[in-house]
């Protein structure tokens, strides 16, 4: 049986949206899939060595469960984003959910290939030295080269 393949495009850089690509990629790799993640636009933030800037905001996120109902006018106050992020991280840890760093390391350990979108790196003038080492740089055609032959292909 040929090895199954999965390709993911990761486009979001918030804490909540950072989890699905790494969870699905690490799981697929554990199931024997050959996996690549193409990081583009805000998804590039997930390749930084330091992930402490990956946050969650209650603002514009009405589905986010809150311990107490919070009016939008309060959500916009300075420090609310950091507070929400801290609370979410505590919740994740309490429930035994791995940190982003841990999941990302598990992906790398399982030979998940990370590709950063060169165009967005240039667009946002990101410094490649701020990214982890195990990253290749390419464009849409690079992604298609792998994605065109996959069993699962997701845009997150």
């Amino acid at each position: 049986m040929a090895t199954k393949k999965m390709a993911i495009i990761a486009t979001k850089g918030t804490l909540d949206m950072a989890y699905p690509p790494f969870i699905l990629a690490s799981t697929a790799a554990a199931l024997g899939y050959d996996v690549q993640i193409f990081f583009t636009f805000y998804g590039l933030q997930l390749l930084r060595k330091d992930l402490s800037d990956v946050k969650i905001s209650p603002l514009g996120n009405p589905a986010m469960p809150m311990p107490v109902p919070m009016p939008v006018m309060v959500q916009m106050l300075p420090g609310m984003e950091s507070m929400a992020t801290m609370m979410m991280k505590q919740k994740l840890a309490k429930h035994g959910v791995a940190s982003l760093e841990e999941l990302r390391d598990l992906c790398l350990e399982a030979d998940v290939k990370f590709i950063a979108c060169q165009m967005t790196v240039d667009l946002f003038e990101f410094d490649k030295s701020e990214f982890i080492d195990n990253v290749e740089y390419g464009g849409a055609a690079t992604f298609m080269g792998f994605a065109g032959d996959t069993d699962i292909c997701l845009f997150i």
Partner: protein
Amino acid sequence: MNFDKELNARGLSCPLPIVKTKKALADMASNQVLKVISTDSGSVKDMAAFAEQTGNALLAQEEANGEYVFYMKKK
């Protein structure tokens, strides 16, 4: 049931029990049995799916006191 290795996955959430099972199996020989203890209720379906997709055999599973125990035989 006899087993060759035990994996304590208590307190871990998806996808860690599966990923750690895969890693534990990687260090074992064919036909050896891995015992996995999990507290994640989602792992009941996930371990079965893992076995089905990887070809390792889920020999047995038990549930007691909020813990789920699996015996996985490496293919």
